[in-house]
């Protein structure tokens, strides 16, 4: 048996509400701190207690950390899913299970390795407190894996004490449980599997963080001062974390007064209304939501576009339509948000693909929305927002805030005139004033009905058309300000892959797998709509472009085809993944190969 070092996918099958989250985090942190590229996906139900949850960890020396459906190691802790969990392990894999989960005769596989561990008895023997037994069982399986995979014990111990910081008794109990697992394996289990981990040096200067926390920090460092939100999975943690950082970083130490205001609104209609009110009055304001909330915000989104008010909306996309699968991921709102609201509308969308971009785009979304005077949408998703990602550390922003074209009292005195909706500079972005500005010329009337350049009510055909044309030109101007796509060119490649957001994680691995089949690919990662010229250039340079995304209908495929248009659009092929779970390389490769072989 040859040893397999730093290359395995592990799944821990538990019941939600059983307290396995800490144990799983400790496990991930241990791999990460050993310097091995690692990634984790929490596949959880829309429920608080009692339904199945799967936590998957992938460690991979080559840096492939997207989800891998072929499981090498299953830790089966849930009787309800025992049969399917048992079947899901790949040939040659490992099944670690409680002794109470019997392997029925018809079920037994001879192509896997079984390790039966008496988790329940070990917990009973070692811990008197009944309430603790269940929780500490989780640390026992961490101990079992630590010993089986040879995870560095000191690293695990440190991860335990960091996880339960300042709670000496909890740390002590968890360390004991960890040791119980280790000792049981040492004394009773004969290792028959090939999996093992060893220290590497891939995570220098890196952190492990979820995209929502990263975006929250971005909001705080980006000068956001008003947050209005309504709880919805998977976006709630973005607002909650922002509030936590506000309390930590934005309270005046001498007065105790706060440089921020947060409101948990009665619904998403109110949340976006508050954000627009605050943006109109000059504060940097944001809300975060998911698909159902976006639906409710549609009317105000059009209002913000038409009246030109800065606003930032985070859409942490989940599986729709309707309630859909609330705790599963999807790139499902791209097409909807693109033109959200009735009438002619287009909204800038920023699409982060990793925590660094969540941090940076959160900041730049405020600059953009104030520069362009329009709602800006940051399109994250459940996978990026809620899962733990290894990431580079965030750098202190070096660019000052861009507050856009705001005229204050002095400027008005100097100019002697002001028309709210006139394109003075030729970039289709007008000037605005804030309520409270002390000058007789400052005031204007904001209305969602027809308005002329002086912000006066009008139903004149010419005025309306002028306004709509200017808004269209403004969207062109937006191209200058949004983040450019990232291009990875491969010498000799004439086939392109275009992807965006969390899909990125699976693309590099797909490219390497395709290469084994002799297909070289270039890769363009789109980071914003509207696109810069680089998208058209990419289409010109490649004979085919595979648009890879996580929805059924090829939403970005449609937007790209619409926006680049003509002959070039005929080069597009659509690669789709839409089962609610994060995309994986194999499905991309299979779809691309099918197309390529038909050529």
């Amino acid at each position: 048996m040859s040893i397999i070092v730093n290359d395995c996918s592990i799944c821990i099958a538990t019941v939600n509400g059983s307290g396995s989250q800490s144990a799983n985090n400790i496990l991930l942190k241990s791999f990460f701190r050993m310097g091995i590229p690692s990634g984790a996906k929490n596949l959880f139900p829309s429920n608080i207690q009692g339904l199945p949850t799967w936590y998957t960890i992938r460690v991979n020396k080559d840096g492939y950390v997207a989800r891998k459906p072929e499981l090498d190691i299953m830790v089966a802790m849930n009787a309800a899913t025992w049969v399917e969990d048992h079947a899901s392990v790949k040939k040659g894999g490992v099944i670690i299970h409680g002794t109470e989960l019997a392997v029925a005769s018809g079920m037994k596989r001879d192509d896997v390795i079984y390790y039966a561990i008496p988790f329940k008895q070990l917990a009973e023997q070692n811990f008197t407190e009944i309430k603790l037994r269940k929780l500490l069982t989780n640390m026992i399986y961490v101990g079992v894996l630590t010993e089986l995979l040879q995870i560095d014990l000191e690293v695990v111990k440190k991860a335990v004490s960091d996880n339960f910081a300042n709670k000496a008794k909890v740390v002590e109990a968890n360390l004991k449980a960890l040791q119980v697992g280790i000792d049981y394996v040492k004394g009773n289990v004969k290792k028959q599997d090939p999996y093992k981990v060893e220290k590497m040096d891939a995570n220098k200067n890196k952190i492990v963080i979820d995209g929502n926390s990263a975006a929250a920090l971005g909001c705080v460092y980006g000068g956001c001062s008003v947050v209005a939100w309504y709880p919805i999975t998977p976006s709630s943690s973005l607002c909650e974390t922002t509030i936590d950082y506000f309390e930590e970083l934005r309270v005046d130490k001498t007065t105790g007064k706060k440089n921020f205001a947060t409101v948990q609104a009665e619904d998403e209609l109110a949340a976006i209304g508050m954000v627009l009110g605050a943006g109109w009055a000059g504060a940097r304001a944001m809300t975060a939501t998911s698909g159902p909330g976006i639906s409710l915000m549609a009317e105000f989104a059009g209002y913000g576009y038409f009246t030109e008010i800065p606003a930032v909306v985070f859409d942490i996309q989940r599986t729709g339509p309707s309630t859909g699968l609330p705790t599963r991921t999807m790139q499902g709102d791209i097409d909807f948000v693109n033109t959200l609201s009735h009438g002619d509308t287009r909204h800038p969308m920023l699409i982060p693909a990793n925590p660094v971009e969540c941090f940076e785009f959160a900041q730049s979304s405020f600059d953009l929305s104030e520069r362009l005077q329009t709602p800006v949408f940051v399109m994250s998703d459940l996978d990026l927002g809620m899962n733990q990602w290894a990431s580079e550390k965030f750098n202190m922003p070096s660019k000052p805030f861009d507050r856009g074209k705001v005229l204050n009292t002095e400027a008005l005195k100097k100019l002697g005139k002001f028309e709210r909706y006139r394109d003075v500079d030729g970039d289709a972005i007008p000037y605005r004033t804030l309520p409270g500005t002390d000058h007789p010329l400052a005031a204007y009337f904001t209305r969602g009905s027809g308005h002329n350049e002086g912000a006066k009510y009008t139903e004149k055909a010419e005025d309306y058309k002028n306004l709509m044309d200017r808004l269209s030109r403004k969207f062109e101007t937006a191209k200058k300000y949004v983040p450019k796509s990232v291009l990875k060119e491969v010498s000799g490649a004439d086939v392109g892959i275009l992807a965006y957001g969390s899909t990125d994680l699976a693309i590099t691995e797909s490219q390497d797998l395709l290469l084994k089949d002799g297909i070289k690919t270039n890769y363009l990662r789109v980071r914003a709509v509207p696109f810069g010229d680089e998208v058209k250039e990419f289409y010109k340079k490649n004979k085919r472009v595979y648009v890879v995304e996580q929805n059924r209908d090829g939403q970005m495929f449609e937007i790209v085809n619409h926006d680049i248009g003509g002959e070039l659009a005929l080069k597009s092929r659509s690669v789709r993944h839409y089962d609610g779970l994060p995309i994986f390389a194999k499905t991309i490769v299979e779809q691309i190969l099918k197309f390529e072989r038909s050529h």
Partner: protein
Amino acid sequence: MSTQAAAPAPSTNKIGLTKGDYKGAPSTLCIGCGHDSITNHIITSFFELGINPHQVAKMSGIGCSSKTPAYFMNQAHGFNSVHGRMPSVSTGAKLANRNLNMIAVSGDGDTASIGLGQFCHLIRRNLDMVYIVENNGVYGLTKGQFSATADKDSKLKYGAINKFEQIDICSLAIDMGCTYVARSFSGDPKQLIPLIKGAVSHKGTAIIDCISPCVTFNNHEGSSRSYLTVKEKDDPLHEIGYVHGAEEIKVDYEPGSLKEVKFPDGAIVTLKKLKRDFDPTNRMQALEALEESKTQGHLLTGLFYVNPQTHDLGEVLEICDTPLAYLGEKELRPSAEALSKIMQGFE
């Protein structure tokens, strides 16, 4: 040289502005609309209070009433928002700039039908603003459908009868914890102007349910909101006055018949007893009086409930004194050290 005497200079208020400085664009509402009278009373109130229009934010939703902020105080920023959503927009604007003197005009459809939820939550949060509901019991802009404040059994212009219970804006507001609740009539400036002034002085949500007959769609026989019916049913609780702290109260009154409500800005609202004793700081009494008048088919008007010592949303949230809108990078962007410490926590 002209021998004509110069026209007398128009009188100015304490900040040197004329009443003309508080006017807006010409109204486009129907001639005789109650809303136009209310617009005029708002102009008079703000002129007499000497409030600088540039400090005012005029908020509204959708409907005939919501058009009216365009017809007063041209020198104030206005926000004619989305149907039923004015409260949320106002909340955001006020959070961004605590110094704004906020007045909102809404209608019965905008407030009690499509906007009922936001109306209730605005009150719960006690946002510091004046909120006038121009209440005519009918949808004007869509040509005469019933609204949720229409009285049960009242008749539409074309004969339809309202079979459903009406929503009473004032008792609902009191129930939601509103700290200033009044009802008046567009045709009664003597009552409405001091109520508006008191609402401006009040630091919290001040609701004025202002009955404002619709001359086009709800002024016929059988309507419970026609000029004639309202005048006939109007049952004022008290005679209302408003004085600044520095002024002397000049109302003639019998000993014990005058109540004074003092506001933190030094203003006093005086309530002179008419038919009955009424304590406007007693919520139970206010609800009882409203219920009783409804049973008797009267239209009770006056200041029903007030709690002048209250904490508005900005105070509850402990927002800093400088408006959030005016804070810059220095106040808003934490340090590099703080970021690097946070980064360490994720290692």
